[in-house]
């Protein structure tokens, strides 16, 4: 069952790398949240710790699948632009990079052969992390940076699910990271920058230069 969810997750990652409109980003992030909810449920249902299972699963559903997309939507409404800048890396090349990242994550996961982590999880988590980084690097506007960070978070979360099924403490601190990141970054962005800068183009955020 896990492999179906992971394959769907991989499909969303490919579409995220070619997406151009901010609405598409929000939809894909919401889909990823829902997929992670199912994944968390199926992964942690075997453990004996009911409280942490409920905590993790609720957090995934409420935060990743509902709250974050809503926050992103409200940010889009405040901004005047709704599309990725044409000066960013073209979608063709970012998709090529993402495919290359997929290959790299397969090779890396192969190198880490011995371990208690399921290989599929490792590949998926590494792939997600790399895709998030590629999103941040390839784009020039703040919104894709945000989405790239959220994708990175999802990758880390998936990885913590894989490792932490025996160590719930790790998973909990991963959740902490999630809350901190979403609340701080998205909240800061939504409240301050959206108001201040009318065209949130990162190129404008380059006055601090030498």
């Amino acid at each position, binding site marked *: 069952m896990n492999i179906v969810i992971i394959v769907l997750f991989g499909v969303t990652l490919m579409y995220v790398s070619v997406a151009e409109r901010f609405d598409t980003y929000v939809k894909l992030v919401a889909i990823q949240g829902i997929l992670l909810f199912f994944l968390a449920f199926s992964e942690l249902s075997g453990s004996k710790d009911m409280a942490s299972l409920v905590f993790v699963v609720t957090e995934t559903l409420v935060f990743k699948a509902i709250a974050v997309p809503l926050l992103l939507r409200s940010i889009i409404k405040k901004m005047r632009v709704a599309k990725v800048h044409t000066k960013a890396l073209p979608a063709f090349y970012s998709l090529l990079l993402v495919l290359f990242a997929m290959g790299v994550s397969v090779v890396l996961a192969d190198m880490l052969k011995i371990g208690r982590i399921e290989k599929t999880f490792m590949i998926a988590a590494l792939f997600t992390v790399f895709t998030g980084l590629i999103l941040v690097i390839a784009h020039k506007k703040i919104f894709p940076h945000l989405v790239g960070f959220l994708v990175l978070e999802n990758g880390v979360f998936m990885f913590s699910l894989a490792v932490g099924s025996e160590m719930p403490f790790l998973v909990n601190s991963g959740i902490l990271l999630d809350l901190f990141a979403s609340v701080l970054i998205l909240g800061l*962005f939504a409240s301050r920058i959206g108001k201040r800068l009318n065209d949130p183009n990162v190129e404008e955020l380059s006055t601090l230069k030498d």
Partner: protein
Amino acid sequence: MLYFFIISTVLIVVMAFTRNALFSKVLSLLFVANLSFLVVHAFCKKGATELVYFTFDGVGVIMLGLMLVVAAAAYVHSYYYLTHESDRGIPLYIAGLTGLLTSLVGVYLSNNLIVLWVFLEATTLTVSVLIYHHRSTHALEATWKYVFVSSIGIALAYMGILFLGAIVSPSDDITLSFSSLEALAANANPAYLRIAFLFALVGFSTKMELFPMHTVGIDANTIAPPPISAVISTLMVNSGFVAIYRLLDIVDGTVVGQWASNVLIFSGILSVLIAATYLLKSNNLKRMLAYSTLENMGLVAIALGIGGVARYAAFVHIIAHTFLKSALFFQVRQVHTTFGTYDLAKMGGYLRTYSAGAMVVLLGAIGIAAFPPSGLFVSELLIFKSLLLEQRWTIFVVTVLVLLFCIYAIVQKLLLILYAKETVAVTGVRPSVYLSIIQLLLVGFSFVVFFARDGLVLSLINDAIK
């Protein structure tokens, strides 16, 4: 330890609501007293573990001592800055500063990887409040960049921690404390250790201002108020250093140890190289000092990578650098008061205008350039000596050449402030002499390191590198 945290939290909450400057000063005095109690307590109980997660080992005690000195100076300078020059938002600033210092205490003393990581997150939070103090668009830009890139770094460091967590077996009840990780690392899969080290290094390099994620520190230092820049450039990079040093301890005895040291050396050389490039180009005084921090941290990374006696040199370098850099950053505010700008091309004739400050700049320049009697001279000499002993000629030559450029750039630009002809009208405001005396004291501390042959501090360092 528990008392320290409780008192600090109470103080922070009260400070956040106090608008009266005098009351705030009293509260900060209480905090400094609290901190000094902790330092004394830690020194007496060296080696003990309190609250399960905090150990008073050599590294922690050294860092705590440094923090006490710099923090006291920071508070004094902050109050001058806030009341004489800009009196917006005292409560948030002071509460943020105290919060930052408390989180740093947590980082220095923790003996568990996850606790260390949580406290590092807390430092990011508190520092971003402080960077945003001016509330201008520049400050917003710097805060946003800082929060964003730091969060990416923290997430990557968390990946590294997860990889390390994977080598802990589930049957025993072993936590992520450093001692148990060290024991386990000997039998762990080297590929895991390598990837964990790489991810964690990239993540922690945001804090320690190393390549690859050094840019946040540079921008933060440029925009933050100068007392905060002093704290960031010294105490926060020290926290990054502590994190990386503990990480190095874990992988040290294993097969990956040599590889990890090489990675550190590589990262250090690149940091120094980048610092040299930008130092030659830079025109902004605060930015220049920030790049000088980058260069010094690169040297520390190289020292950690070489190992052996160079580790001792790394600690000496950290101590001397803390004192020197904080003094320089505190002085930067007084330079700004005199000239009204941070632009180096416009400053000059500081020696005539305000001699006490000029003395600080002069002695600071001598210190940063690592001339004797600066403490940095001792550490750099030791680093080069161990490079030659290990016969690593390429690294030696590259480091010396790049360092040459750095020193040329810094000394030239700092001395320009003193002797050149100024192109902007001097504002008549006279900076406070008392502050300059404090800064001279700090510089003096760093010179004392040069003369120290044995004693309290050195024994602590030896304890730390065991």
